[in-house]
């Protein structure tokens, strides 16, 4: 069972994504800040990270750079209320870019696609 790390400063959104991803059959863990998220990436070895961009303290784009710096990196989906970050080339390195929506199916599908392509490239 794949393990998904959700990094978002909004507790209600963390709960929503956790609920939906578990329903879709994933194991989840959550972090309220980018710093804690980076720590979990190292200690909990998730299979995928969902990163919010706008967060107090370190933002998602900076967190993404830290994740990219490591070997054997974990795939990242940027999940944000802002469609404008698409124009920022620093976000292009992410495996997917999802604009937040009440319809979480888009996010869940993105998780599945990224994990599937990762599996395919490994085998």
């Amino acid at each position, binding site marked *: 069972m794949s393990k998904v790390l959700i990094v978002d400063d909004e507790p209600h959104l963390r709960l929503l994504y956790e609920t939906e991803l578990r329903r879709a059959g994933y194991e989840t863990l959550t972090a309220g800040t980018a710093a804690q998220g980076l720590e979990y990436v190292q200690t909990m070895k998730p299979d995928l990270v969902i990163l919010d961009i706008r967060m107090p303290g370190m933002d998602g784009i900076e967190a993404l750079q830290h994740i990219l710096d490591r070997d054997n990196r974990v795939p990242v989906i940027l999940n944000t209320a802002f469609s404008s970050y698409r124009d920022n080339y620093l976000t292009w390195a992410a495996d997917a870019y999802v604009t937040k929506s009440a*319809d979480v199916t888009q996010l869940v599908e993105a998780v599945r696609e990224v994990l599937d392509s990762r599996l395919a490239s490994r085998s």
Partner: protein
Amino acid sequence: MTPDRADHRDLIAASFCQSLRPLLVLGGDGAIAAASEGAGWLLGWRAAELAGVRLEDLVVPADVLRNCRGDAPCGATGLLQVQMRTAPGDLVPVEIRCSRFEQGGSRHCLLFLTDLRQRGHEDELRAVRLAKLSLLNQVSEALYGAHLSLEQILQAVLICVTAGEGLRFNRAFLLLIDETQEVLRGELAIGPGDREEAWRIWSDLAGERADLFAMMTTYDRSVKQTDTAVNAIVARMGVPLAETTHLLVRTMATRQAVRAGLSTPGPGVEAVLGWLGCAEFAVAPLTTRSGPLGVIIADNAFSRTPISDLDLEFLQMFANQSAAAIENSRLYGELERRLIDLRKAHQKQREDQETLMRMERLSVMGETSAVVAHELRNPLVAIGGFARALVRSMGQDDPNRQFAAIITEEVARMERIIHDLLDFIRPLKQTRETVVVDDLVRETVGRYLKRLEEKAISLDWDLGSGGAAVRCHPGEIQQVLENYLVNAMQAAGDGGFVTVATRALEGGVRVSVADNGPGFAPDLADKLFSPFFSTKPTGSGLGLTICAQIVKSHGGVTEAVNRPGGGAEFAFILPLPKDDEEAGPGAGVTTGNGL
């Protein structure tokens, strides 16, 4: 007595004797003690011979001045008019004024004599002078008082030079320095064409007894048609200012009116006489403080009256007045032009400022909306997300399931509004490519073929822009076209018709999407492209606004019309590139990133 005083007395005595005014000094005995040169002239004597002659022998009637002698009052006061006998025996009317004085202990009487024959001529001259001065005053008031155009002033000037009430010249010609400042050129002339016409006009005018004011205002209908001949003459007149010795140019330099005729030497005289075809003429310079404007030439070609000193003097005075009026009118005209320019500049500045303020307000509004929209997105995701979860967890027959579903729908609608709003605010990218319109339309509409088929909507292609290409941001134009197409499909409904057409226009290409739906209420035509206006219950009202903004940013226009046969037609027109905009293929590079 000092020698100085003796000299002084001699000087006064000599002055008295030399005076051309007729003066007599009577001694106490009533005999003439001294007479001036003028008195000798008047009475036909040599002045020295008059000494010792008794006054009563010279005056008729003799008793009038019988008592007039130095040592006693003559009883006559003020002026006395008498006849005086001259040496040849004629009688001359004379006016006498007495003035008593004392000299060297004895009394004398000084008599001032005035020849009354001369007086008549002087009075006449004085009257003419007065009349002309009054005329100048009138003209001056007319030129300054009424608001006359430059043209009217020039006409008025020439009328005054020629009018019977004015300076009484036969003809007047006005020459002005042209705008190149290089040539003195004939501008306007007034006067009869020949002798017969002159007589007719003068008798007509005498009959009408028009005053100057009336003549200036009625000139157009009374005299103008007769001026063809003189205006033909004035059109031939022209002297380069470089010819500084030419009479006309010289007159402007000396600033003094002159009279010239067949015998006058110097360059230019012959030429002017040749133009005028007469024997004598007068020239007066039109000068202002800022320099010469031109000259007035006047002549008496028909009456052949010689031009007198007085005529010349008045022509000069009148020319000075006219020059000031002409200069004034020019300055006024210049001032008026500058005022208009200033007013225009002011108006434009105000408009620019208003536009700027409006844009600033819109920009602030836009930024505020963007911030609010983003802030709302997170809570909406939570509300809508959990509402979906509720819907899923409830059984089909749970009455609350419908309520949760409503929350889901409404949140979805709010998210759509925010999405449209943020797209609307986001500045459009400025990378453009040269695109063949028909190809773009074919490709874009092609993506909807499957959906059209599902709804059984028949699609008519009418691509007739003949391969015309425009400079555009293809993604944005596609967005406009898709918006039109989706609207048309909704309006047409299942089994309807949609027509996609392109046409080449002069300077542009028109792309239209038409449907056979219900069309729109005619009074909504203006609102269709306004923000937040929608005829659809679920629309955000921003779709067509974004379309209009995109088309506008391409320099194009959007249109919405109801078709005569029913249904609506939405169109946009994009301008063809100007020559300097033409760019090679691949000049526009779009950037982006995939998921």
